[in-house]
């Protein structure tokens, strides 16, 4: 790779060992993709995870004197103060979350603790070169905004924030943003949940090719969030186009950059129904409900509040959201309504965190296949269904077909 004098100096250790390690990772990534050089970024989002490797790496950078040139927003860990209201945290878990917090503050991150930065606090413009990690975020900025980010790892996005540059490869190049497979959606797409299923189902038919969806009518932000998150979890697909809807796919010509689709596949209602059956654990009695993977929007919180108002939940219900939506929920009374029904709203928190230990070994209901995918390791079971069905299940304590 051809590096500028400053980038070479970073790699040679002249800016300290933290910057050196960050540049070493980026050069390795660049070389594995035959990138010719680095390009500057103007935004970054780091999928902080508060996991051991995350803490190990950020402390290593901090101890090596690294400070972010481009201050990134960060993913959630867990809000230790809010959790103490309904569970007991283990000392070691609280210690690691506090240490992670300190290290990220030191390196210069903006402590948003939110996995939907593209809706608030870190919204890129069309064509902007960025480094976004987080599986729902990368597809959103690429596809919906037409900004440019590779499918960054949490660690490579942090390296980019530190060095201020990324290798020039992948989705940063026009030709790699070309649609490859036309996906004709024949399913009805009645709910935002259907977009979760579509996202999970598509890579099974298209592999890792860039899909161009036709037949989708005006999906909202939640539907788009869901589609991207699941495409990127079910496969490694961090970009898609929607014909006549997303900015780089106003026409077939634009979406496929003047070429023919390599293949045309169809997704029917039956495909989605089969996917739904494969993803969920068996229906029946449940112990809790959990939402917010990705973080629920204020509109989704309003839906939940509307359904539980004046009622009593049969099982505890938990909502994870951004700190902005948390404050809005307080202001708009959703917080009080949900609390009175026996539910909780927490901010800054991710599903895949040790603060949820009190739910291990239990069976929940959720609207997110991604949530269930990662909790296999936590011995948790999940019935996966529409948000509204899941809230009904939480009111009744069970879910039947």
């Amino acid at each position, binding site marked *: 790779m051809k590096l500028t004098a400053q980038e070479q100096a970073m790699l040679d250790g002249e800016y300290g060992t933290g910057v050196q390690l960050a540049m070493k990772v980026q050069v390795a990534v660049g070389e594995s993709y035959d990138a010719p050089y680095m390009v500057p970024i103007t935004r970054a989002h780091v999928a902080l995870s508060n996991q051991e490797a995350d803490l190990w790496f950020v402390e290593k950078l901090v101890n090596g004197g690294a400070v972010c040139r481009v201050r990134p927003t960060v993913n959630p860990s867990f809000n230790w103060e809010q959790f103490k209201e309904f569970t007991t945290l283990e000392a070691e878990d609280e210690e690691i979350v506090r240490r992670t917090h300190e290290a990220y503050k030191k390196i210069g991150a903006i402590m948003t603790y939110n996995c939907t930065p593209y809706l608030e606090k870190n919204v890129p413009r069309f064509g902007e070169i960025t480094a976004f990690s987080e599986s729902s975020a990368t597809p959103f900025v690429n596809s919906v905004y037409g900004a440019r980010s590779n499918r960054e790892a949490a660690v490579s996005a942090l390296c980019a924030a530190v060095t201020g540059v990324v290798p020039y490869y992948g989705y940063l190049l026009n030709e790699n943003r070309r649609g490859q497979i036309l996906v004709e959606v024949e399913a009805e797409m009645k709910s935002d949940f259907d977009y979760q299923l579509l996202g999970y189902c598509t890579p099974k038919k298209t592999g890792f090719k860039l899909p161009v969806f036709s037949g989708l009518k005006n999906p909202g932000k939640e539907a788009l969030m869901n589609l991207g998150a699941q495409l*990127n979890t079910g496969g490694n697909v961090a970009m898609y186009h929607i014909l006549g809807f997303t900015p780089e796919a106003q026409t077939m010509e634009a979406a496929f950059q003047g070429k023919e689709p390599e293949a045309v596949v169809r997704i029917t209602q039956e495909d989605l129904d089969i996917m739904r059956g494969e993803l969920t654990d068996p229906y029946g009695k449940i112990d809790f409900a959990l939402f917010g993977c990705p973080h629920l929007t204020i509109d989704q919180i309003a839906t939940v509040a509307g359904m539980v108002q004046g009622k009593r939940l049969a099982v505890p219900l938990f909502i994870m959201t951004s700190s902005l939506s948390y404050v809005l929920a307080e202001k708009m009374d959703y917080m009080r309504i949900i609390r009175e029904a026996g539910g909780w709203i927490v901010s800054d928190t991710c599903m895949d965190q040790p603060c949820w230990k009190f739910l291990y070994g239990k069976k929940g209901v959720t609207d997110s296949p991604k949530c269930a995918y990662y909790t296999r390791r936590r011995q948790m079971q999940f019935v996966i269904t529409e948000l509204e069905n899941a809230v009904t299940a939480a009111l009744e304590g069970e879910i039947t077909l």
Partner: protein
Amino acid sequence: MSKTFECHKISEGQAKGEVLISTDDFCFYLVDPQTGVVIEKNHCLYGQSIAGKILLFPNGKGSSVVQTDGMFQLKMKGTEPKALVIQNPDTTLVASAILMEMPMVDRLEPEFYQTVQNGDLAELDATNGVLKLLGREERE
């Protein structure tokens, strides 16, 4: 009969060990760090241990976080593979391999994939881009 193949270095280092082939894409988070056993339902290596193996798989998969942490936890417990041979690198996998100092290569010719079998003994010099298959009979 040993056979030598050229490959492309992604992450430097040397390793010698038994080959384990995954035809499915791989997520290191869905492996039990205590044992190195794959716990992902419906995965072709479900129930098998990747510890100490030279692991072949087509692509990485999983969110932008979990590959690194999965690999880190295996490394902490000593149940990590000795090296990785992949077909399509992705950013997460490359960054994780560099940080965990795990030798990793790609760009093996098709003949390698026609020749290699589960249980073959292999010697990888990732730094110099050479992978030697020592075959099964030399294992003893």
